[in-house]
Structures are given as structure tokens and as C-alpha cells.
């Protein structure tokens, strides 16, 4: 715990973020370049789905990313509400828009893939519905931050909303096992993966690329949030002096 607290000091965080930012951007770009090359050029086309299978290389990592970002958000909210740590509150706030975009991307690419494969853009089955609920949860979470003026109050209320919504995460994960879903079951399990390495390796590179993209954007927008907070405080002080 002591170690985490060391990095949670805002000034120290800003210094560290400045140091790693360029590296993170570079790693993200390289991972995306390699991942996209392998998934769009090198990976074989599916014998049934043809070239459409390549949508999956964008879709699956986006869906993984969207749930991961929510987990980060819920964890930050829990830390914020238990230890009253200001950086944790801001971390949850900064994660939400990124997660919402990932969720939208997963839904959108899924619809594009669904049209030629399932013959429809959208079906109301368990996996798709629970994922749509995830999107609504992100929107509600962001709306709370918008609606409440007082920062500390907004942080507490938003954390409650995020934690209640976290119930949805296991539902998304297990929706394909619990219900007869049109969506294919998970390809990753404790026993390993059910897809061939020529598909799996580009997929994992893409997943890593998405993770680094999130890390880069998250730290960057955390920095922006800290600055915004500081500006607000300075404005308040200036207003008091007048």
C-alpha cells in the first residue's frame, strides 16, 4: 500500500507521467502497426467468413478493452470511496470516456460483422444486450459528473453509480455460457485458446495495443483532469480575493 501511495501523490504522478508519456505513445504506435499488419495482411482469411473475419481483430480487443476499462473505473471508484484519495476519483473520471468509446467501437464493428454473417445488424440476445447496458452505464456515469457541480460530492456519487454498475461485468463475461446466445462463446479459457495461433497471435498483439492505447490516453487525460482541478482551485482563490 505504501508503494501505491507514493505514486498517488499528484506532483509525483505528473512528473512520472511526463517521463513515460513519449515512450507509451511510441509503444502504442508500434504495437498497432505490427498488430494491424499481422491481422489485416498476414493472417489467413477464414474459409467460411472470408475477409470479414478481419473485423474481429478490431472488435474483440475493443470489447475486452471496454470491460477492462470498466473494471479499472470500478476499482478506482472503490479506492476513491474507501481511502478518499483524490487521484483515484480523477482516475475513474478519466477512464469513463475512453471506455465508452471502446464500447461503442465494439458495438459498431460487431454490427458491421453481424450483417454479412448473421444477416442482421443487431439481435437482442444476452451478450449484445448486456454490452449495450455497459454503454448506457458509461453514459450515466459521465452524466453524473456533468450534473453535480461540487467536485467531492460528484466523486462520491459517481463512485456509488460505478460500483453498482459493476454487477454487469460478470453478466457480460458469462452471458455466452449462461444463455443460448447467437454470439460465439469465449475463445479464451483456463485450458488455453480454441483458435489457431495464426489468428491468436495477431489478436493478442492487438489486445496489447489497445491496452497500451488505454494506458496512454488514461494517464494523459488524468494529467488534464489534474490541471483542470488546479485551475478551478486557483479561480476560486482569485474569486475570493475579489
Amino acid at each position, binding site marked *: 500500500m505504501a508503494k501505491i501511495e507514493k505514486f498517488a501523490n499528484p506532483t509525483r504522478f505528473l512528473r512520472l507521467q511526463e517521463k513515460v508519456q513519449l515512450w507509451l505513445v511510441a509503444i502504442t504506435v508500434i504495437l498497432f502497426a505490427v498488430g494491424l499488419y499481422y491481422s489485416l495482411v498476414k493472417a489467413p482469411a477464414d474459409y467460411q467468413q472470408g475477409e470479414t473475419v478481419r473485423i474481429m481483430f478490431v472488435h474483440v480487443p475493443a470489447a475486452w478493452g471496454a470491460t477492462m476499462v470498466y473494471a479499472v473505473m470500478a476499482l478506482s471508484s472503490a479506492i476513491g*470511496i474507501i481511502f478518499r484519495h483524490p487521484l483515484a476519483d480523477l482516475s475513474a473520471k478519466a477512464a469513463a470516456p475512453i471506455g465508452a468509446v471502446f464500447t461503442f467501437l465494439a458495438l459498431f464493428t460487431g454490427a458491421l460483422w453481424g450483417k454479412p454473417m448473421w444477416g442482421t445488424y443487431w439481435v437482442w440476445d444476452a451478450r449484445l*444486450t448486456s454490452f449495450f*447496458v455497459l454503454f*448506457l*452505464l458509461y*453514459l*450515466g456515469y459521465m*452524466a*453524473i459528473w456533468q*450534473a*453535480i457541480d461540487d467536485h467531492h*460530492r460528484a466523486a*462520491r*456519487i459517481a463512485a*456509488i*453509480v460505478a*460500483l*453498482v*454498475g459493476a*454487477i*454487469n461485468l460478470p*453478466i457480460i463475461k458469462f452471458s455466452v455460457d449462461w444463455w443460448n446466445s447467437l454470439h460465439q462463446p469465449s475463445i479464451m479459457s483456463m485450458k488455453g485458446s480454441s483458435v489457431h495461433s495464426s489468428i491468436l497471435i495477431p489478436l493478442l498483439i492487438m489486445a496489447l495495443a489497445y491496452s497500451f492505447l488505454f494506458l496512454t490516453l488514461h494517464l494523459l487525460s488524468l494529467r488534464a483532469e489534474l490541471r483542470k482541478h488546479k485551475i478551478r482551485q486557483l479561480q476560486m482563490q482569485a474569486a475570493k480575493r475579489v
Partner: protein
Amino acid sequence: MKSFMALLKRDLVLAWRQGGGVGTAVGFFLTVIVLLPLGIGPDQSLLQRIAPGGLWIALLLSVLLSADRIYQADYDDGSLEVLTMGAMPLEIVAAVKSLSHWLTSGLPLAIIAPLLGFLLNLDTSLVFPIMGAMMLGSIGLSFLASLGAAVTVGLRRGGLLVSLLVLPLYVPVMIFGISASSGGLSGPDVSSAAMGILSGITLVILVVAPFGSGAALRTYMR
């Protein structure tokens, strides 16, 4: 326990005497049920098929309609602050408020729903499954509504936000509520299993929602 009953009695009396409490919910419910066949067209077999779903959607909307008023009046006139000072923890206060919301919206609606179902050509064998599933499910709906109301109590225009926050959480109740209501149509095993899951979901909500509401109210009382 004494203060629990006292608060419950106060809320029920207020809801009854202020007028508009039970009446608005029932009236709104009736309006939706009447508008539904007008929008869809008077095809009897189609209406029969969508009757359970229509009733559930009307129930959801009616419960949501009165949601933002669960704490609003008490917050505005300061009674909520008095309750904060009292011996009863805010979590229990939230549970009492949710319970009285259920008694004045969910329960009466669940009782009259099958009656209005005849307007939708509801299959008579479904009357009791629907009533049971709605009574059980609407407890969960009321407790979730109270969570949404508590989270937005200090905001001036919280009403819209309540729907955005609460509707995603209504999804599981709605899904299993409907499959429990469809009775023998999709096989007796399916509907009794759905009834079991619906009870489970309601129990989880009963435990989680008061704590969330209590924490949110405490934040606003500070």
C-alpha cells in the same frame, strides 16, 4: 422497529393524503395500456402475444414516473436532515422509503395489471403468473428507483438522469419478469426457473440498493 413502523406509516399517510401518489401511477399505467393497442392496431392475436410485455413496460414506466419524488420532498423541507440525526441508520431509512414507494406504486399496479390486461386480450391462464411476477419484480424496481432517486436528490433536474441511471439496472428484472409471466406458454419449467431467478435478483437488489442509497444520501447531507 418502532421508528421503522412510524416512518413507514408517515410515508404512507403522506402518499395517501397528498393525493396524486397512488392515483398518478395507476392513471399513467392505464394510459399506457390504452395507448398501446391504439398504436399497434387492434389485431387480437398480436395483442395477446405482446400483452405480458406491454404490461411490464407500463409497470416500469409508472414506477419510474414517481421515482424522483421518493426523497425530494423530504430533502426540500429538511425532514431528511432530521432523519439523518435520528437513531435509525440512513440505510434503514432508505429501505423504508423504498418499501413505501413499492406499497404505493408497484403493489397496486401489480394487482390491477391483470385486470387491465383484458384490454390487451391477455390469456386468462396468465393472470396469476403475471400478478405474482409483477409483485415480486416491482419490489426490486422500487428499491432500484430509490437508489436512482438518492443519487440525484440534490440536483435540480434529476428526473431525466434517474431514468438514464436506473433503466440499465431494470433490464435483468424486466427480462426474467417477462419470462416468469409467460406462464405455461414456454413450458412450466422455463417460467418456474425464471421465477426463481427473479426472486434471486430481487433479493440481491434488496441487499445492495439500501446501502447505495444510504451512502448517496449521506454524501448530500454533508
